[in-house]
């Protein structure tokens, strides 16, 4: 029996029912959309969707890391906004500033993530609380910085190129960036000691600690990465819109968590594959897109959104029964 299992391709053997359901739903949504409008299945439209999905995809990658540890990062909204605003702000400081805008934006996110990491790993404060607090602090800082008005600085040319350019003809840069980041994430999670430690800690931090892993450092690094990726998502969004906006990150918190969870990653940690997160991101993006194409008002969109997430989780996200 062991032999046959060894000969089956790896991904089939470990096929996660959640990932399969997620991809199935994507197909379902595409069919549904095509019923409404022919254009829905056109390559241009699908590529456009993929580009929009990339922004969420970058952010969801960081969120996945944190969720795999059994934690959560609720500071994503203002991490995104801060990354965007700080990158644009740096652009106002001459050529040096413009060149360093993107790294500076990401750095701000990383710093926020480090604060989160210290709170969770070293001070043992529940991640929900720490990240809510740092989110509020980040918001406060940005309000002070912008004086309460919309940010006036615009995005640098580099930012715009990353978000909207075409280094490879036909494929938006944002998609390539997501693919690169995704590949790095997959490599990190499946091929490195760090990745093993992440899964181990998410499964049973106590056992990981007793095995001699420096669990605190791993948790802190994961939060730092999440902060950096959120900020990078913000940088890209600013490039897409040519500037930053107040509360631009708010719309990404629920979708990033939903994308990760719908992709089969357990909210309790220790289980999940990046492929599932990719499926979840595309699924959420398509859902939002269909709802807007059907011109359903915001109210209806929110309701359908919530109902779909609950329904899908009831399908495969349930905890085992007691008896």
């Amino acid at each position, binding site marked *: 029996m062991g032999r046959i299992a060894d000969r089956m391709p790896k991904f089939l053997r470990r096929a996660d029912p959640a990932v399969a359901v997620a991809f199935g739903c994507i197909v379902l949504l595409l069919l549904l959309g095509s019923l409404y409008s022919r254009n829905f299945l056109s390559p241009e439209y699908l590529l456009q969707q993929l580009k929009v999905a990339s922004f969420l995809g970058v952010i969801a990658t960081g969120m996945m890391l944190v969720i795999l540890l059994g934690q959560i990062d609720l500071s994503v909204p203002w991490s995104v906004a801060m990354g965007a605003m700080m990158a644009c702000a740096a652009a106002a400081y001459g050529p040096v500033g413009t060149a360093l805008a993107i790294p500076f934006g990401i750095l701000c996110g990383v710093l926020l993530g480090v604060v989160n990491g210290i709170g969770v790993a070293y001070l043992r404060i529940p991640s929900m609380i720490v990240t809510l607090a740092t989110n509020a602090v980040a918001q406060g800082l940005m309000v002070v910085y912008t004086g309460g008005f919309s940010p006036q600085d615009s995005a640098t040319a580099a930012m715009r190129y990353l978000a909207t350019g075409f280094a490879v003809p036909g494929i938006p840069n944002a998609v390539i960036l997501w693919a690169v980041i995704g590949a790095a994430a997959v490599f990190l999670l499946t091929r490195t000691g760090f990745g093993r430690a992440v899964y181990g800690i998410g499964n049973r931090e106590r056992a990981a600690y007793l095995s001699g892993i420096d669990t605190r450092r791993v948790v802190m690094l994961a939060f730092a990465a999440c902060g950096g990726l959120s900020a990078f998502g913000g940088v890209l969004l600013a490039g897409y819109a040519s500037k930053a906006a107040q509360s631009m990150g708010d719309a990404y918190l629920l979708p990033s968590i939903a994308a990760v969870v719908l992709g089969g990653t357990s909210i309790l940690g220790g289980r999940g594959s990046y492929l599932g997160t990719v499926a979840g991101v595309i699924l959420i993006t398509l859902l939002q897109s269909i709802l807007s194409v059907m011109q359903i008002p915001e109210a209806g969109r929110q309701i359908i959104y*919530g109902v779909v997430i609950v329904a899908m989780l009831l399908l495969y996200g349930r905890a085992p029964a007691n008896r």
Partner: protein
Amino acid sequence: MKEWRYWLIEQRGTLMALAIFIVMFVIYTANHPAGFTANVVQTAANKGVLLAFVAMAQTLVVITAGIDLSVGMVFLLTNCLASWLVVGTPGETALGVVAVLVAGAVCGALNGAIVIYGRLQPIVATIATGAIFYGIALLLRPFPGGSVNEDLADALTGKLFGFLPLSLVALAAVVLVVWVPFSRSVYGRAAYAAGSSEMAAYMSGVPIRRGKFLAYVLSGVLAAMGGLFLTFFTYTGEAALASGNAYTLFSIAAVVLGGVSLFGGRGSAIGAIFGALAFRTIGDLLFVFDLDPLWQPLFQGVILLVAVSLGAFGLFRVRNRLEWFL
């Protein structure tokens, strides 16, 4: 003589919250240009009571070791509903009030059903139901508007005997009628037991599911009280997303400040009320000290961060590092 010592240990969180609140309030009124007058107290009370109701709602869920990220949206939904229903003759108004509270209960029941019988994790489930509730609020009030029975509104937001804010009286009444009976009932104890150790509670034959469900339903009712009072203060219904999110966030802050453990099983809604009042007062300290209101969000955020970090100092007493890991 040891009895009071045990009582102290039991009520530690609540007493701490009370202490923080008193300190903050004293600083506030001492530095307020108008000083400790009835009007100052009334304005402070009115603002604080809204958060207090939402914080109580959050407490009920948190003691079952859950979290409710939809509580701010229930608050909005019931506000919008009230702006439609709590109008007209006294009879119609009364029916309207009841309808709003029932709506809150239904929201709570939905959360409870999904978490308990659907066995989904509260954090994800309530993020999703929050979206549903917000959508319904938007359906009810795409634009701010509506009205409310102004006699009732003025009555409940005014002063009793010339100095006691009625909103506080209403809050106290709700505590007496809802919280105290619940916390002393078998179901209330079941909710605490489930939050502390669900396995042990099951083995002891405690009615876990009913206890938790009741906690969620009552949580919805309390959030609805908050929504009602918001309507009384503003005379309108508005599906303000930012406001709803803020109330959710602040309710968690209030709960933490109020000595309620996020891990479940410990804490009291009374502590959460003090936590909410303290949190509001802290936010208003800026105004009193004549600082630029621009700094208020940052100030509140830093206070929150410091408050939650304070709990971490218990860490230094930990002798067995394995206790860091559940």
